[in-house]
């Protein structure tokens, strides 16, 4: 990958203790870079609660030990960087406050832009490294014509993580390596097994790392310093049809766990924080064609003024759909899908693609 005006010799690899970052390190080392590994300590079980015995999360001691062992076997230094204070303030703080605002946050997006591509990158530069690398499945590089650093989907469509990387600045991208963007997860496992990397068979975690037991309700209750009031579940006509446990525990499009018997599936269509109500309706009521997006970061495309057509993805599991994207006067983007989409969820990221290339991203209002 070309980095105009920058000579990259030394790279600090963010090691989670899983197979992906281990192979990222291995590949960079094979390419002749002066590589070192570092594991970010982002949280502590004493802070986040949950099952202490559980392993597989990125910050438990075993993961840190695995990362250290991999680095040792590849004869590169390994460090543990404690960012738990900032992580708690920036990422966990936002996670909880978003749920209380009736929104559904994506903490990985925030962690990427504010922790990994800000604090970790800064620490890398401080210790004399020219760039950082991670085990994300996405591609990055520099496009001479537009004079922009770009992010593209990884070649492994089933693993693509470009959606969570839209918040990275151009300066940070100019110092970023994503060695797994060009290979599939299967190849990663094969490379790890062939090289006899310790983490070759580590199971991966798909949950949010700091909610170790995947129990958001438990986490939010423990983290919050006040009681969370229950309230009414109402239908689209405003009739009370049930009771909810507290607005932070629901998400737009949610179908399960509503506790209401009904012949057809019911979905959460609105979280009304002001009136402490959850509104439910039929599938058709959750479909939306229009949304607005805030906090825009232009990635592969320079900031645009004119309306353009793009493929827009509105959550990690969503398949990007055709939409008209129009810059608004206040810097936000308005998105109009060709066909209405299920569960447009405030707090999630909306990412606009041109084919495989991330044009811009932001947070759904």
């Amino acid at each position, binding site marked *: 990958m070309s980095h105009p005006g920058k000579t990259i010799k030394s790279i600090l690899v963010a090691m989670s203790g899983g197979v992906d970052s281990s192979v990222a390190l291995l590949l960079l080392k094979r390419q002749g870079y002066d590589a*070192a590994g570092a594991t970010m300590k982002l949280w502590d079980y004493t802070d986040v609660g949950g099952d202490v015995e559980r392993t597989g999360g990125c910050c438990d001691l075993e993961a840190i030990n695995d990362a250290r062992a991999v680095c040792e076997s590849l004869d590169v230094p390994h460090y543990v960087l*404690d960012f738990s204070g900032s992580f708690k303030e920036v990422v966990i703080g936002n996670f909880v406050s978003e749920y209380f605002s009736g929104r559904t946050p994506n903490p990985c997006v925030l962690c990427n832009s504010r922790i990994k591509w800000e604090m970790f990158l*800064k620490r890398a530069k401080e*210790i*004399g490294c020219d760039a950082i690398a991670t085990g994300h499945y996405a591609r990055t590089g520099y496009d001479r014509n537009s004079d922009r650093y770009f992010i593209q989907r990884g070649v492994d469509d089933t693993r693509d993580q470009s959606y969570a990387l839209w918040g990275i600045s151009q300066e940070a991208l100019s110092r970023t390596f994503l060695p797994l963007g060009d290979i599939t997860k299967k190849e990663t496992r094969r490379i790890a097994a062939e090289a006899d990397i310790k983490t070759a068979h580590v199971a991966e975690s798909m949950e949010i790392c700091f909610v170790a037991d995947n129990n958001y309700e438990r986490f939010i209750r423990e983290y919050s310093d006040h009681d969370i009031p229950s309230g009414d579940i109402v239908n689209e006509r405003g009739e009370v049809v049930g009771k909810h446990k507290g607005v932070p525990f629901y998400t737009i499009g949610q179908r399960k766990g509503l506790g209401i018997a009904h012949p057809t599936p019911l979905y959460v269509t609105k979280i009304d924080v002001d009136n402490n109500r959850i509104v439910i309706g039929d599938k058709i009521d959750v479909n939306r064609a229009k949304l607005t997006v805030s906090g825009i970061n232009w990635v592969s495309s320079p900031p645009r003024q004119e309306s353009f057509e793009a493929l827009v993805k509105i959550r990690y599991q969503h398949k990007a759909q055709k939409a008209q994207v129009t810059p608004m006067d206040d810097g936000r983007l308005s998105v109009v899908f060709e066909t209405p989409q299920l569960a447009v969820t405030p707090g999630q990221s909306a990412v606009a693609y041109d084919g495989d290339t991330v044009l811009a991203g932001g947070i759904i209002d």
Partner: protein
Amino acid sequence: METIYLDYNSTTPVDPEVIKVMQHALAENYGNPSSVHTLGQKSKTAIDAAREKIASLLGAKATEIYFTSGGTEADNLALKGAAIALRKKGNHIITSKIEHHAVLESGNYLEKNGFEVTYLSCDKDGVVSVDDLRQAIRPETTVVSIMMANNETGSIQPIKEMVAVCHEAGVLFHTDAVQAMGKIPVNVEETKVDMMSLSAHKFYGPKGIGVLYIRSKTPVAPLLHGGSHERRMRAGTENIASIIGMAKALEIAVDKLEGEHQRLTDLSEYFIDRVKTEVGEVYLNGPVENRVPSTVNLSFKGVEGEAIILSLDLKGIAVSSGSACTSGSLQVSHVLEAMDADTLLAQGSIRFSMGRYTTKEQLDYTVSVLPEIINRLRAMSATYQKAD
């Protein structure tokens, strides 16, 4: 890349002579010293000889030497053991804010279990005041624990004077001499302490073995119960090879003390001068005099310690910030905090600790890489503004 080791206060490499006697002991002295047969008695003789040797090197009697698993256990045994044994006499204990965590956390544990603990502060050089100690002693005070030399700054504490104050008041005195042994003269006859902790791996011996010196007739309750080992003070089959290794290590350390002290004094003065000249805006934490000379704790204005440590490590130089047990976090060291150090400066503190294998060439190399590192960090620092 050759590693330049400047972290001797964390631990030291094992002396080759020590390895030799330990290898022999591991092979030959496998008999249990508690066994009545000849093989067992051979092991007993070997550890008794080690005990004799250690006692004579410390100015103690052999019956006053108790082997422990290291400095932490020795500190725990001294504080908790004496506090519990003297509970009927009183429930007040005095220590200082600059102690090792083995002492601080033992104090904390005792506080949770009905004891009162006073933590004395220190002056800006990291020295605890004898007057403060005198004033803190109450009728119900039973034990005082003040370290001989501080692990982070090397500040040497006025132990002899403190012992006198305590004995006048009928109070026991314990010192954690883990960081003093092999670096300054340590002698219980001279200092008159009642208890003293040592750890072998700080003086080129093996890890996992230490000593608690307990003066005859000092009341201490054991923490580990079981067999009648260590005169019922510490149950558990003796760590024979390590005990023998420790005795050898101590013998060498005491033998080399005078020469090493002078050599390391010269080296550390040279190093401090050169860093100050080459880098600038560098401050020595701890006293200039009355310091274990091999401990050089420096604050670099405008930068924090962890970034320096990692940068130096990438250049093959091993150093620490503060004590090894607390590094890894950006918290200001409890020792520098007690010294009332400027917080921003304290965050940029690095402990260079030298030892037996430190050479002038190694220090020259360290000085040669420091300016680039510090300048880079200062250029990126939000808090650094160059002095006019």
